């Protein structure tokens, strides 16, 4: 472990890659939160596939191979894909899943057509274009990371400037419109930055797995909080950690590409959150469920005792535990618990209601009556 940190400190390449994946994870996590909350989780998948022809076309037109030019092409074609999806869902009766799948597969096919076309060109120096398919974090150089940091900084500024607008549009678009915000503009802005984040990640994790980097941190963060700002921060953190751990794991082994490892690390975060998040998590939900059931049974027993005791003048008149037998809701443990809560007293084979127990049960009866 310390050895790895040592290496991280001294090895320039590793440091660049780690920084790159961390920044990428952070920005994707933050912007991904908006995609997830807008129920557009899979838009990321479609956009990343739709960006491929843009990369190929940018290369064919300019002949340049630097990331900035290619990513600009990706951005344009990603945006075209996104708005075509919007057009299909708003103007026809086709549903969003069909629109997404359609754009995703046909744009990707078109991108592949162009890529193979480029490869067959005799003069083209096309090597390196296929890294966008599956991503190669190892090809990240300082200028790429700089680009990422700049884009991240810009999107952070925009995020802070338009925070209120983004938030209100997210939760109540109609209200946003009625109080006079330009919803179209805000919507375009959010979409633009989501596309930007995806395009930025293509080089590192590739077209196929990009959507997971966008989705997974946000889905994990969502489980821990109900506040948007906390969720965005948490998602950024989870994304950054996934990037750092993913790079570390893949660097420590041979033949392990970074993209898939980052995705798996992020998936582990999601799994952990789904199970262990307090409040929403599956584990705590199960515990709460069981506690509720136990409580209910306890109250049922108390109710039954109350039915017996109220026929007697003295409510604390002892009765044999035996007569509870025909009632299935009690165990030794539950009687003990009732006694601990001062609701009944136990004396050898007998039980008796206390005043407190009698009042509690009577109170429950009243509530029941009132509800009816």
């Amino acid at each position, binding site marked *: 472990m310390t050895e790895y940190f040592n290496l991280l400190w001294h090895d320039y390449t590793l440091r660049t890659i780690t920084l790159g994946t961390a920044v990428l994870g952070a920005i994707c996590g933050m912007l991904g939160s908006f995609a*997830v909350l807008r*129920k*557009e*989780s*899979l838009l*990321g*998948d479609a956009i990343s*596939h739709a960006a491929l022809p843009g990369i190929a076309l940018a290369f064919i037109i300019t002949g340049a191979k630097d990331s900035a030019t290619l990513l600009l092409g990706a951005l344009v074609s990603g945006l075209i894909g996104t708005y075509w999806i919007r*057009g299909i869902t708003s*103007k*026809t*009766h*086709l*549903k969003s*899943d*069909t*629109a*997404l*799948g*359609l754009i*995703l*597969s*046909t*744009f*990707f*096919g*078109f*991108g*592949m*057509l*162009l*890529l*193979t*076309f480029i490869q*067959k060109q005799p003069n083209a120096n096309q090597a390196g274009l*296929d890294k966008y*398919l*599956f991503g190669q974090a190892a090809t990240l150089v300082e200028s790429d990371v700089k680009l990422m940091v700049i884009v991240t900084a810009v999107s952070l500024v925009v995020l802070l400037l338009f925070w209120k607008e983004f938030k209100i549009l997210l939760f109540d678009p109609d209200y946003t419109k009625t109080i006079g915000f330009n919803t179209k503009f805000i919507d375009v802005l959010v979409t633009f930055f989501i596309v930007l984040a995806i395009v930025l990640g293509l080089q590192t994790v590739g077209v*196929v*797995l990009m*959507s*997971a980097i966008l*989705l*997974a941190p946000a*889905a994990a963060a*969502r489980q821990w909080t109900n506040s948007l700002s906390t969720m965005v921060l948490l998602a950024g953190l989870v994304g950054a950690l996934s990037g750092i751990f993913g790079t570390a794991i893949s660097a420590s082994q041979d*033949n*392990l*590409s970074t*993209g*898939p*490892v980052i*995705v*798996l690390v992020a*998936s582990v975060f*999601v799994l952990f959150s*789904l199970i262990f998040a307090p409040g*929403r*998590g*599956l584990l705590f939900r199960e515990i709460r469920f069981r506690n509720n059931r136990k409580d209910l049974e306890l109250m049922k027993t108390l109710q039954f005792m109350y039915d017996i005791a109220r026929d007697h003048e003295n409510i604390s008149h002892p009765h044999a535990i035996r007569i509870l037998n025909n009632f299935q809701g009690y165990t030794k443990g539950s009687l003990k618990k009732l006694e601990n809560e001062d609701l009944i007293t136990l004396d050898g084979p007998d039980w008796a209601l206390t005043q407190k127990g009698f009042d509690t049960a009577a109170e429950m009866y009243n509530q029941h009556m009132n509800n009816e």
Partner: protein
Amino acid sequence: MSSPQIEIQIIAAVVAMACAIPGVFLVLRKMALISDAISHSILPGIVIGFFITQDLNSPLLILFAAFVGVLTVVLVEYIQKTGLVKEDTAIGLVFPALFSIGVIMISKNAGDVHLDVDAVLLGELAFAPFDSMMIDGTDWGPKSLWIMGSILIVIISLLLLFFKELKVSTFDAGLSASLGISPVVIHYGLMSVSSITVVGAFDAVGAILVVALMIAPAATAYLLTEDLKRMIVLSIFFGVLAAISGYWFANWLDASISGSIATTLGIIFLIVYLFAPKKGLISVLYRQKQQQIEVSLITFLLHLNRHDEKRERHINHLREHIDWQEAKAQKVLNLALKNNLVEIENDIVFLTEKGLTFTEKSLAYIIENKHEKIDSMKDDFFLFRG
């Protein structure tokens, strides 16, 4: 045309048909993206199956990978049921994770596996004819043709056998359950068939083209018809059309066949999306414009009907009062005049007899908001046909 060329086209056409049929049901059931998820997540299934069988075309491998495909669906549904994430998020979480596992398995065993991710994702149709089925030293034609041919036959027989069940459970799950047709059985049946199709096709055409061949023909057909049988036939037609023309396009460009077929599918969809008679973009925009004018006209007539004062009905005042721009006001006024709904006397606008009845009927429609009213109105005053 040489014999491999013909074989490639036949394989492409068979794959297109086999994909189009389950694709129609996936699109109708709003589960189109499940095909995308399955096509990615079968990767670990294929790798493990390959370790066991050492043969990419073994039926065992296909079954194994198809099982992983169904497992994907089950996983997605389980995560969805927890209610912790939305449905589409569940899909987006499951398939990249499984795909990553597959990629890592391949790269860790790169030496032993003659299998690379590119091939799974993109396929290479051009090589399909050369992988022949050899029995006792005789060449029986391309293996993938045999595999996809059998899958196609199974799909068609299942479709014919269970057409009614599929139809009912797709359009009305409640009715189908009450008729004793379990929607769950049909659902998992469809998922299994889709998985098997995807797995069978990936080797020939690649995972992404499978998605294109499943979704695009069905989506295109859905823009043209609402009849299930016709939709299936049209999807098959579009699929095969794209497969054949895509092949020649690729041939001409000397580029990836599967990419070219997917592109052709996209182009066919684009054309239908723009020009489809009822559901196409152009006719939708035209209709929306018409409706806009219709609403304006009714607003205008109602205004006339409401006000008796001359001031309110003066031709210049109307423009200000309803707050329309001049061009629009002029257009609406002309339209009303042309249809004899209003008359102008000394710059004061009057409703004619016909206009009065029309206005009252529209008022009745607005108040009661019943469609029967507007139907009879269309018969009376078909304003804008022609």
